[in-house]
């Protein structure tokens, strides 16, 4: 088990180090996030629309599109010089490679969420509610589910000529539970509703995330094995 965790940690560390050095994915994701916030700032007449009502939807839309932009390139760095073969023929179990990719993508998308929350607060003065811990919990669980599904499908789309074009087509139907329950729970937190009104959505998000992670861990082998 210790060796397994060390192997997973080695891949996560390598992925994040490469991201720090190249900034390829973070730059694209961050730019999209800020750009969307700026566009809405100019597009929406805040005198006519009560922005707080739209807050959860805008933030989740930004996270989903920004996250997908970066996660579509999850396996790009492994294609360079055939590094994916180095990973697949190493003693790391295939589910370990999948979990490592999920963890590194989770870190990247979480960073983008922080940027999105900051950008919307800056441009619209959104009120994120009284319970920031609960907000972090909802965003964390929903993001893990989102990342678990998208990482698996990024591995599939990386093996096709259509690549990133294919990813949104494959993935959007599967993300419906994250969108529905994520937006619902986040909206209620922003409206400072009682915790009991958020719990239902949070449990459903948690169930989705457990199923997505389990399925990804099992199915990844069939995606990369030939």
């Amino acid at each position, binding site marked *: 088990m210790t060796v397994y965790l060390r192997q997973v940690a080695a891949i996560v560390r390598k992925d994040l180090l490469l991201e720090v050095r190249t900034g390829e994915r973070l730059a694209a994701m961050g730019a999209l996030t800020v750009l969307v916030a700026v566009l809405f700032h100019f597009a929406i007449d805040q005198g006519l629309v009560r922005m707080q009502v739209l807050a959860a939807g805008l933030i989740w839309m930004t996270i989903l599109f920004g996250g997908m932009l970066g996660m579509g390139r999850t396996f790009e760095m492994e294609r360079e*010089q055939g590094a994916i073969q180095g990973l697949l023929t190493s003693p790391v179990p295939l589910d370990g490679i999948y979990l490592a990719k999920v963890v590194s993508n989770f870190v990247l998308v979480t960073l983008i969420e922080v940027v999105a929350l900051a950008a919307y607060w800056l441009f619209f003065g959104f009120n994120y509610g009284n319970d920031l811990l609960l907000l972090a919990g909802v965003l964390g669980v929903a993001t893990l589910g989102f990342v678990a599904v998208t990482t698996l499908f990024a591995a599939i789309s990386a093996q096709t000529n259509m690549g990133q074009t294919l990813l949104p087509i494959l993935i959007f139907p599967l993300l419906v539970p994250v969108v529905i329950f994520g937006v619902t729970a986040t909206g209620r937190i922003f409206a400072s509703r009682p915790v009991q009104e958020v719990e239902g959505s949070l449990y459903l998000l948690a169930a989705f995330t457990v199923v997505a992670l389990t399925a990804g861990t099992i199915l990844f082998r069939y995606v990369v094995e030939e």
Partner: protein
Amino acid sequence: MPAAAAPRAGLPVLEAASLVRDYGPVRAVDHVSFHLGAGEFLSVFGPNGAGKTSLLRLLAGGLRPTAGEVRVSGIPLTVGDRAARARIGILSHLSFLYGRLTARENLRFYGRLHGFGDLDSRVPDRLADVGLERYADSPVDTLSRGTVQRLAVARALLHDPEIVLLDEPYTGLDAYAGAMLQELLSGLKEGGRTVVMVTHNLGRGLELADRVAIQVRGSFVFEAERADLDAVGLERSYRRAVEGRA
């Protein structure tokens, strides 16, 4: 370089038993069989599309055979077999290295995947084995093709594999880098490693080999002991084999 671990007595270290691999209707590897003992070097020649790389991926456990099996010291190799993977090293014309990481970081990364705890001594030793100590902290992107290939040798041998699989290791190397790689590869035999190399380069392949095979359209159409063959004989056999199946 350190010697490979001793194989179990009496058993071939690497064995291919009637290996077949199909990609849809195309048969890439067609009933290939051979066995190699410790320290034996097999060179496999063949034209483009002969199925050489598929054969090597089957031997590495990176590809599932349609039929037949690979055995490592008598034990069938299955895809995802972690213990067997730890006994096999792969060197390709692709380095499997990350360009934005330094030579040292790349080796430490692969060392962690193998679960080694002695990376502080193992990595400098491997870099010294291939004469790259002074490039330890250089990003791989900044190194020449020949230097990268030497680093790839260090990566492939980082875990002291008993079996080394070489896929066109000379591709893109100039004469000097090629000669240096040849020297490194001849060290593998002396270290008791079992080696399979697939290559287009008849001269280099013959120089190192104990046995040679020519693969055309998936199957071995010619096999010989090195002692029974010279360069002219190999070239004649190669031409005959390729033209005969064209």
